[in-house]
């Protein structure tokens, strides 16, 4: 008899409690549902993002080394921060990053905006060719970085061959990845290849948001093509362009995967973007405290930019 109850209990109990939960859920107020729906997401983000962030802040004031847990962790105050900000190597790295961010975004904006203007003319088949152009941006940056090393092989790579075909330079006479002068441009080139479609797509949305009536009004006013471009097209597209530029700037500022596989920061540390410096410090030299401080500096910079990005995002949304 008692055995039967033991068996039955676990079967009955969940059923009863689940109907109870159901009843409770159905009777819930809107406010209750709102919090029930939002909380899991917030908890996950707190656990995976904010808790580690707090830990990072704490570690950034110490000399902690994650591979030597037995060492006594000493508080070094703001030592790591002053060390980083006074480190000439790091400023060289920042310049590398700035070079990469500036030139890749410049090329992407020029090409992307130009392509958007052309695609917007709606020639026959424009939608098919647009889709083809969009493909690179959906790929994995790591895989992209990896297969471009194949195209950049000095003797047999397709890129070197094509360059030599058009310019007459021997295909083995230059190395896109190993050369001190070329490597910084190599990462710009691959990034431009990958992300021009991104800028194009957003610019295209900007162009399509301009009502035809404005152009017709400009026509009535006998505005020249250039005048129309400068006073109608450009100002209307600028918010969208800002959106694209800010997002690419943030992404390229923290660029890791593509560059890591394309040049791995080399030759030497010539293409070492800040993220690669951070990876080397944190996971190769195991200077956890020092790299935590650098991580915090990166966070602050990125958050500042993200704040502006969201403001622009909301502005564009109202259009």
């Amino acid at each position, binding site marked *: 008899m008692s055995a039967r109850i033991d068996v039955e209990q676990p079967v009955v109990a969940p059923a009863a409690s689940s109907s109870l939960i159901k009843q409770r859920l*159905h*009777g*819930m107020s809107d*406010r209750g*549902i*709102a919090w029930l*729906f*939002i909380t899991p*997401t917030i908890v*996950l*983000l707190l*656990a995976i993002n904010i*808790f*580690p962030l707090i830990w990072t802040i704490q*570690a950034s004031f110490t000399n902690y080394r994650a591979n030597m847990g037995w060492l006594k962790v000493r508080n070094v105050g703001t030592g790591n921060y002053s060390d980083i900000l006074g480190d000439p190597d790091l400023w060289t790295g920042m310049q590398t990053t700035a070079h990469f961010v500036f030139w890749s975004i410049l090329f992407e904006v020029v090409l992307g905006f130009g*392509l958007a203007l*052309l*695609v917007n*003319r*709606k*020639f*026959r088949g*424009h939608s098919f*060719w647009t*889709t*083809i152009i*969009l*493909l*690179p941006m*959906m790929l*994995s940056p*790591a*895989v992209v970085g*990896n297969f471009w090393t194949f195209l950049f092989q000095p*003797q*047999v*790579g*397709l890129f070197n061959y094509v360059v030599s075909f058009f310019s007459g330079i021997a295909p083995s006479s230059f190395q896109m990845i190993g050369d001190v002068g070329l490597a910084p441009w190599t990462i710009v080139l691959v990034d431009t*290849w990958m992300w021009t479609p991104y800028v194009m*797509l957003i610019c295209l*949305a900007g162009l399509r948001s301009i009502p035809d009536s404005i*152009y*017709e009004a400009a*026509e009535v006013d006998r505005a020249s093509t250039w005048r129309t471009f400068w006073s109608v097209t450009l100002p209307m597209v600028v918010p969208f362009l800002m*959106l694209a530029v800010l*997002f690419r700037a943030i992404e390229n500022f*923290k660029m890791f*995967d593509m560059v890591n596989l394309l040049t791995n920061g080399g030759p030497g540390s010539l293409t070492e973007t800040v*993220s690669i410096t*951070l*990876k080397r410090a944190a996971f190769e030299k195991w200077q956890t405290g020092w790299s935590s401080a650098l*991580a915090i500096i*990166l966070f602050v910079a990125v*958050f500042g930019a*993200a*704040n502006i*990005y*969201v403001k622009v995002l909301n502005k*564009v*949304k109202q259009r």
Partner: protein
Amino acid sequence: MTGVATAHSVVDASARTKWISGVVVVIYALVTITPLLWIFLTSFKTSADAVAYPPKVFSQPSLEGYCNLFNISSRQTPEFMASLPPAQGYCDKVARERGMVIAGPSKTPGRLMNSLVIGFGSTFLAVFLGTLAAYALSRFRVPIKDDLLFFILSTRFMPPIAVAIPIYLMFRQLGLLDSYLGMILLYTAVNVSLAVWLLKGFIDEIPREYEEAALVDGYTRLQAFVKTVLPQATTGIAATAVFCLIFSWNEYAFAVLLTSGNAQTMPPFIPFIIGEGGQDWPAVAAATTLFVVPILVFTVLLRKQLLRGITFGAVRK
């Protein structure tokens, strides 16, 4: 005097401008697609043809790359080769021609499996959590809503390497390093921010009248959500899921730092497909092709939603 301006409306370009625009765009498209086509072609070459000079566009098609991707082979002496029974199957034959024998299966199927499990697992969780949060943020008056939305999105901007340092230590403590659970949770956290913003955009577009009608009919809020909002949000949910899946599938930084074997996905694995003397390019190209084709298919299917996806739902058309 061209007189073009009087011949057409400014809104609709003239036939000649259209033609020139078309030619320029097509040339750009062809140039941009060439590297991908080249990788695709390389995956069907023999290792000798892949590194031939001058580069061969058309070569005798071979599945050597795919064979090497899924099998490990080892070099043997000619005497040993002569003593073997005849080759079984295509891959065995290809290996024998190069003086090698197949020694066993490679790690590729396992890595592909990891990518699928982690990709679908994190996508499911992110879309599930994201739909709930997006609905609440779309329909209810939530205090500090704008701050919450900014907080959710800002987590996506965190540099992965910076996040990876504490995550590495946390996962080490919890035994989650190189595990499915750890990677799924991590990717869910990254994806949920996109999911909330995208889905909020989609749910905002569903008229409230449907729910209100349902509420008047005596449905509870939850029933109204499940029976009227969810069915109308299916397209949005599907598009969001594809974006999440593509992110998890493509992710490299976390994967390379936090996994080594058990839970390693394809992106950190592909660059280390090694043959005799360095990277085995046909095999790498084969892996890249298999890895990239699903993404290309999804991109074509998602064409209309792409803009939303890359602007967190802000730009819709």
